[in-house]
C-alpha cells in the first residue's frame, strides 16, 4: 500500500535578499552559515532515521526554501548521502530542488542532475520588469529563459515555473503576457499563485500606508479564470487549485508527487529550520532560527520518532482531526478530490456518516460535486475552485 511510502521535505532557509511579499522562514545575508547548517541537517536526518521503528521507504524528496540553489553541489551531495544511509529509496524517486533564476549555471545544473535531482522548480513569478521590481525579485526574465535552457541541456525533463498574479498595478494584459511567455518555455508543470498579503511583510506595510493599491479580488478572479482556459487550450491539466501539469506520453501527468503526498494527507518528514512533518499520528515543527536549529541539532540526542532534537512542537492528531485535515487538503485536488471509497477504507467510517450535513450543504450551494466513474469522488465544482475557503471551513473547527 502507498501508506508506507514516506516523503521528505528539507528546508533551506537562505536567500540573497528577502522579497517584499515573502513571509517564509528564510534569512538574507546568512550564507556563511551554510556549512554548519548542512552539518546540522545531516545530523537531524541521522537521528530521525535511527529513531524510526523500521527502515522507512521514501519516494519523494523536496528541497524547498528559501533558496536551495544557494547550496553548493557538495553540500547537496552530503544531504542526499545522509538520506540514502538512513532511508530506503524507492525505484522511481522524485527529487525536486527549488531554485531561483539567477543563481544557476550550466555546470551546476549538470552536477545536480548527476546527483539524482530530476525535478526543478523555478521561481519565475513574472516576465514583467515592473512586477519583478515591485516584488523585489533578484532576477530578470531573460535569466528564466537561460535557466530553463540549461536545465534541459543538463537533462531535466520535469521543470516547474512558479508565477504570481494579482500583483498591484498588474493589468490583465500584463498577466496574459507573462503566462504566454512562460508557456513559450514549455514547462512540464506550472504553479499559479494569487498574491496574498502576509502579515509583517513590506508589502503589507506599503498597503497599509496606501503606497500600493489593495489587490482587486475581482481582477484576480478574472486572471485566474482566463489562465485556466488558456492552460486548458495549451494542453495542461489542472490537478490542484493552483497547479497545472502537462500530459506525459504514457497518459499520466507531470503532477508533483511530493505535493500530492500533502494533499492526500500521507506521511512526510520535515528536516531543517522551521520544517514541518506529519507522521505516526503527530504533526511536528522544527525550531525556526538558523542558529537555534544548529544548536538544537548539535546538542541533542535521539528522540522518540517522529521528533528530533530540533523539534519544538509536536501535536498529536486524533482521528477526528485527521479526517478534517484529509478533507481540507484533499478537496484542493481539483480532479482527484476525496474518494468516498478510500475515505472509508482509511477511517472505517463513511464520508456520509462523518460529514453528511456539510457535504449536502455545499453540494446544494454548487461548490462541491460528486464525480468520477462511480460517482464516488467528492470534489470542488469549477466555481468552487475560487471559493475553496467557503468549502474547507465547513470541515474544520467544531
Amino acid at each position, binding site marked *: 500500500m502507498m501508506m508506507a511510502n514516506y516523503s521528505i*521535505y528539507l*528546508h533551506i532557509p537562505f536567500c540573497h535578499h528577502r522579497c517584499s511579499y515573502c513571509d517564509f522562514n528564510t534569512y538574507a545575508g546568512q550564507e556563511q552559515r551554510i556549512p554548519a547548517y548542512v552539518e546540522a541537517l545531516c545530523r537531524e536526518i541521522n537521528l530521525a532515521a535511527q529513531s524510526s521503528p523500521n527502515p522507512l521507504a521514501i519516494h519523494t524528496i523536496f528541497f524547498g526554501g528559501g533558496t536551495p540553489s544557494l547550496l553548493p553541489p557538495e553540500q547537496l551531495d552530503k544531504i542526499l548521502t545522509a538520506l540514502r544511509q538512513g532511508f530506503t529509496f524507492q525505484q522511481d524517486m522524485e527529487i525536486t530542488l527549488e531554485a531561483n533564476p539567477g543563481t544557476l549555471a550550466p555546470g551546476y545544473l549538470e552536477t545536480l542532475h548527476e546527483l539524482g535531482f530530476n525535478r526543478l522548480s523555478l521561481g519565475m513569478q513574472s516576465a514583467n520588469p515592473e512586477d519583478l521590481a515591485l516584488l523585489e525579485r533578484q532576477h530578470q526574465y531573460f535569466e528564466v529563459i537561460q535557466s530553463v535552457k540549461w536545465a534541459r541541456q543538463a537533462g531535466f525533463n520535469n521543470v516547474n515555473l512558479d508565477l504570481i498574479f494579482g500583483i498591484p498595478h498588474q493589468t490583465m494584459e500584463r498577466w496574459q503576457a507573462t503566462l504566454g511567455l512562460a508557456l513559450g518555455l514549455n514547462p512540464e508543470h506550472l504553479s499559479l*499563485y*494569487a*498574491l*496574498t498579503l502576509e502579515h509583517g511583510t513590506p508589502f503589507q506595510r506599503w498597503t497599509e500606508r496606501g503606497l500600493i493599491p489593495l489587490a482587486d*479580488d*475581482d481582477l*484576480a*478572479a478574472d486572471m*485566474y479564470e482566463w489562465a485556466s482556459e488558456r492552460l486548458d487550450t495549451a494542453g495542461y491539466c489542472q490537478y490542484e*487549485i*493552483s497547479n497545472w501539469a502537462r500530459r506525459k506520453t504514457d497518459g499520466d501527468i507531470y503532477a508533483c508527487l511530493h*505535493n500530492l*503526498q*500533502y494533499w492526500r494527507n500521507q506521511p*512526510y518528514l*520535515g528536516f531543517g529550520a*522551521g*520544517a*514541518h*512533518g*506529519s507522521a505516526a499520528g503527530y*504533526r511536528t*515543527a522544527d525550531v525556526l532560527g538558523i542558529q537555534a536549529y544548529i544548536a538544537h541539532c548539535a546538542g541533542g540526542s535521539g528522540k522518540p520518532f517522529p521528533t528530533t532534537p530540533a523539534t519544538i512542537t509536536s*501535536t498529536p492528531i486524533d482521528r477526528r482531526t485527521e479526517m*478534517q*485535515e484529509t478533507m*481540507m*487538503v484533499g478537496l*484542493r485536488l481539483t480532479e482527484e478530490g476525496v474518494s468516498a471509497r478510500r475515505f472509508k477504507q482509511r477511517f472505517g467510517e463513511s464520508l456520509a456518516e462523518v460529514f453528511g450535513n456539510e457535504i449536502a450543504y455545499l453540494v446544494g*450551494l454548487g*461548490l462541491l460535486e460528486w464525480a468520477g466513474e462511480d460517482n464516488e469522488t467528492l470534489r470542488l465544482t469549477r466555481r468552487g*475552485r*475560487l*471559493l*475553496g*475557503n*467557503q468549502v*474547507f*471551513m*465547513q470541515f*474544520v*473547527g467544531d
Partner: protein
Amino acid sequence: MSDSIRNFCIIAHVDHGKSTLADRMLQMTGTISDREMTEQVLDTMDLEREKGVTIKASAVRMSYTAKNGRVYELNLIDTPGHVDFNYEVSRALLACEGALLVVDATQGIEAQTLANLYMALDADLVIVPVINKIDLISARPDEVAQDISSLLGTSPEKIIRISAKDGTNVDQVLESIVCDVPPPIGEDDAPLQALIFDSHYDAYKGVVAYLRVFAGSIHLSDTLRLMAAGVDLKPVEIGVFAPDMHPMEILTAGDVGYVATGLKTVSECRVGDTFTHAAQPAEAPLPGYRKVKPMVFAGVYPVEGEDYGNLKDALEKLQLNDASLVYSPETSQALNFGFRCGFLGLFHMEIIQERLEREYDLDIVVTAPSVEYEVLVRSGETLQISSPAKLPDEAEILEVREPWMKIQIISPTEYYGTIMDLATRRRGIFREQDFPAPNRVQLSFDIPLSEIIVDFFDELKSRTRGYASMDYQFAEYRRDDLVKLEVLVNGESVDALAAIVHRQDAYHKGQALVTKLKSIIPRQLFDVPIQASAAGRVISRATVKAVRKDVLAKCYGGDITRKKKLLEKQKRGKKRMKMVGSVEIPQEAFMAILRLEEE
C-alpha cells in the same frame, strides 16, 4: 452612638477622581492594608476595572481616629460620574448628610459637577468641595477654586486642594468630614425606618439590600417588613461593608449597612422601599426614590436561536443587580425570538451588551437603539412604540410624538459656535446661555432624544477636543413629522434595520444608510441588493456583488496547521453573523444607522 457617625458620598463629573480618593481614604483609615490595595478598589466589576469607570455605587464603612482623639465611623458611598447612572447618585444622596464634591484641577467645573451638586443641594446635604489632581502640571487650582467659590460661596482659600493619587492633603479631607458633616439624627428606640438605596444579588444570600437606618435598630433575630412590598422576612445576615460584607449583630440609627434578605427576586425588595419591624411597624415609609425610566430601547437577539433560553436567564440575573434594566420578549421577522430592552442611556446599553457577551458568553445581536414614540392612531388610541419596525402604516397615523430633552453643555467659550451648529443640525432649539466661570459657557437647548443617541456625544467631544461636557433630563413629548425608514435586503424588508427619522432627513439618511450597509455586509455567494424606502417610496439602492474569490492560494506540508487555524477563524467570524433570510449580516450592520455622520 450616632454622634460619632458620618455618612457621606463622593460626587463629581466622570473621571475627576472619586474612586481614587476613596482608595486613599480606605488606606489612611487602615480599612484596607497597603498590600490589599489595588487602584479603585471599590470598582469591583471586571468591566469597571477595565474601563476605569464606576458603574454601580458602593458603600464602605471606615473607622477613623480624628485629630481630637475620638474614633469616628465614616460611611462612604462612592458614586458613578457618568450621566447614565445619575439615578445611582440620587439614591446615594438620600443615605447621607454630606457630599464631597470633587473637581479636577485641570478640567474645572463640568456638566455633571453641576448636575450632581444641584442634586446634593436638593437633598439638603452639606457640601465639602475638594480640588483634585494638583500634582499635574496642567492643574489650575487657583482658577478652579475661584469658580467653585462663586458657585458655593465658600472662600477660595478654604477649599482643600488634594492629589488623590499621591495622597497629598487627603488627611485634611477626613478631618473636614468629621468637622463639617453633621452626624445623623435619629433615635435608636423609635420604630425602625431603614431606606433601601441599592441592592445586589448573591447566589447564597439572595437579594442583599443596602440600607441606611434612619430610626430604630435592626437585630439579626428581628422579623423585618418591607413596607411597600408588604413582605415579611427574617434576615439571613446583617452587617456593614468594610469593604467586603462584614456580618454584625446589630445596626442602629445612622448606620449604613446591609440586610441579606434571602429573597430570590428583586421585585420583592425594591430600591426605595423602607424596612420596618413586623412586630412594631413605623407609621409610614420614608419617601422613596423617583422610579427610573429607561430612555433608550434596543432589540437583543441571540445569534443562534437555541441560545434564547440562556439569554433570558442572563437578563434575569443582570436585572437582579440592576433594576434599571427592563426587558420584554419580542419577535422579529429577521432576527426571530429575542427581547426588547430598555436602558438608561447608550453607555448603560453598551455595558449590558458587554456583560451579556463576556460574563454570560453569549453571541448576541443588538439592534440600533431607539427612543419610545407615542403614536396617536385613527382609532383614537395612543400607542407606545419603541421598536421602529412597529410604527403603523402612515394612513393609520394621526400624529407621532417623540421625547424631547433639556440638555446643558458646558465648554470653554471658544467652542460656542461649533456647539451651536451641532445642536441646531440635530433639531436642537437654543434656550439660554450662562457663564458659570470666566471663559466657560453653559448652553442650554431643547433637543429630541433620538438626535442625542445618534453619536451626539462623540461628535460634541470631537468638535471641542474633549473639553465639552453635557448633562440632560427628560422634558416632554412633542409632535413632529416623523416617518419610518425601511431597509430591504435581498428583496426582504429587514425589520431590525428600520428607523424612525424626520421626513426632511429621510432622503439623505436613506442614501447614507444604503452606502454604509453596502460597505458592512460582506460579499456573499450571490448578489445582494439593498434598498431603503420611506413612506412607500424607494430612496436608494445598491448591490453587494457576489464574492468571486475566497481561497488560500497555497497550502503545502508546512502550512497545514496554520492554514487550518485561519479557516477556523474565518468560520467563527461567519458564525457570529446573523442569517437574515439567506444573507449573512454582521452585528455592525444593525448599528449602521448610528454611524452615518462618518461618511
